[in-house]
């Protein structure tokens, strides 16, 4: 109807109800801060867990005398296994370079290269690692294992380690998911209660407005705009604080800790926009909906 009038009404009301307005804004601010910290932390943790799971793989060692033709044939055979994902070839020479760089003195002593050509096979799903190993080297009747190709010397995957990694990371992921859900519920409850309290203290005002002939929407719009303004204010402040925290604390540390630098955390800009949008929406909808009860005069 009259946007200018409604906006002026909303601002005037924020000014006149400074304390409830401040409380509403503060609750949005705190919620956004907590969410803003926890979303990247949850992401980094699950990302790290996934990365650890990604490290679960099967090593296929070839015979010392394997020719290029053998190598190609084995690669084909491995790739035709259903559970096999990425197949990476590490040649003798590459392996030697890598190990030598890691441990120069020991390799100095050895003189010649003792390492075989290797395929590092990542399973499509980390949980399938043992299936993959069994597919590449089915257990024989005697209990020993026979690889699927005579050029393969052996197939190795540490069974204990893999299962440990898999269960541990699963627990971490579930815990993080539960925490995230709880946080969102807590945020919505906190904000809606604050709004309800501040509206309750103005119930009489709404009653009087109705008695002098104001329509529901005439009363509601200023309240909704008020919610938008307070939500945006709280959101912007929280995002600013988050940015300061990121620049002052996280960024310098990120160079030292792999976990924080985990690549899968959300971009800060995207996070900021998401949080702002959510805080504005929640507080606007909250004010509009909570008001309904008081409009029945």
């Amino acid at each position, binding site marked *: 109807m009259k946007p200018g009038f409604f906006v002026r009404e909303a601002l005037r*009301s924020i000014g006149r109800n400074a304390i409830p307005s401040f409380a509403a804004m503060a609750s949005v601010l705190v919620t956004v801060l907590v969410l803003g910290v926890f979303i990247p932390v949850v992401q980094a943790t699950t990302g790290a867990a996934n990365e650890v799971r990604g490290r679960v793989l099967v090593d296929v060692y070839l015979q010392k005398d394997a020719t290029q033709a053998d190598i190609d044939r084995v690669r084909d055979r491995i790739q035709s296994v259903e559970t096999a994902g990425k197949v990476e070839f590490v040649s003798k020479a590459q392996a030697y370079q890598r190990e030598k760089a890691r441990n120069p003195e020991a390799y100095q002593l050895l003189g010649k290269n003792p390492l075989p050509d290797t395929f590092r096979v990542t399973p499509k799903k980390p949980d399938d690692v043992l299936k993959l190993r069994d597919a590449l080297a089915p257990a024989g009747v005697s209990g020993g294992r026979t690889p699927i190709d005579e050029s393969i010397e052996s197939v190795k995957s540490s069974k204990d380690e893999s299962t440990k990694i898999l269960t541990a990371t699963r627990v971490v992921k579930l815990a993080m998911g539960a925490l995230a859900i709880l946080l969102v519920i807590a945020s919505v409850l906190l904000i809606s209660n604050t709004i309800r309290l501040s509206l309750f203290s103005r119930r009489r*005002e709404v009653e009087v407005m*109705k008695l002098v002939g104001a*329509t529901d929407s005439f009363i509601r719009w200023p309240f909704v705009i008020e919610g938008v303004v307070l939500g945006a204010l709280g959101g912007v402040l929280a995002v600013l604080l988050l940015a300061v925290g990121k620049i002052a604390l996280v960024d310098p540390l990120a160079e030292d800790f792999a976990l924080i630098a985990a690549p899968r955390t959300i971009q800060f800009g995207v996070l900021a926009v998401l949080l702002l949008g959510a805080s504005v929406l929640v507080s606007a909808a909250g004010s509009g909906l909570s008001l309904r009860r008081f409009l029945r005069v």
Partner: protein
Amino acid sequence: MAIVERHKDELERRAGPQDRAPAVVEFRGVTKHYGTEKAGLTEATFSVQRGEFVFLVGSTGSGKSTLMRLLIKELEPTKGTIKVAGRDLAEVTRRKVPYYRRNIGIVFQDFKLLPNRTVYDNVAYALQVTGHSRKEIRNRVPDILRLTGLSTKLHNYPDQLSGGEQQRVSVARAFVNHPPLLLADEPTGNLDPETSIGIMQLLFRINRTGSTVIVATHDAQMVDRMRRRVIELQRGRIIRDEHSGLYAPRDMNTAEFGALLREPAPAPKRVEKDPIDELWGDEA
């Protein structure tokens, strides 16, 4: 007032009602119970014609405010029908109620001012609700506030005003829309005699422009002086309804009785334009 003038006035006041249907307000067997037992109003039947000025009297708790609140559809009657300008209030939907209320000026017994607004803004709100322009509001509000003697308090908040001053703000807000029907619940309850007279004069002036006015009051002096129609309630029942009544019934002396007898029957008269015709204008 000279007797001739008064007589002329009286004729004017009585003129027309029978001629101009429907009644502005019509109560038919209206009963209002609070909760299951507590009776606020019992079997009230009366009607008020256009342009009438009615005093509603009765001891405290007799149901005057209940009657007013029923009229603005703040309460629903337990039984009976209420018609305003020919329209049954039961048919007015929740969505339409605000538009209905805009045509009624109400002075509340407990003022009902908006605590977070200045005197000026409280009165202006009644105009903003009906979509008046800012210019109109700037023109009208200071006028009505001057009329009610509040010119120096424009920017005070209700909690910075005396009881009487708050009451005047309530009166100003009810007048500012020039409503065809004006309800005033104790408009002079907290005022000194002089201001009371001022408010009554204002009500009277509004009444003369064609508005129907219903005033609930305990102000015996005022009722006795103005000599308008009086409806008396007692424990929710109407026990007296008389024209040119007094606050308390009393035996008429012979001279008055004679005067009443000599009074000629009023001639029917039609008022050309009556604001009450626009009361349901929003419907059209």
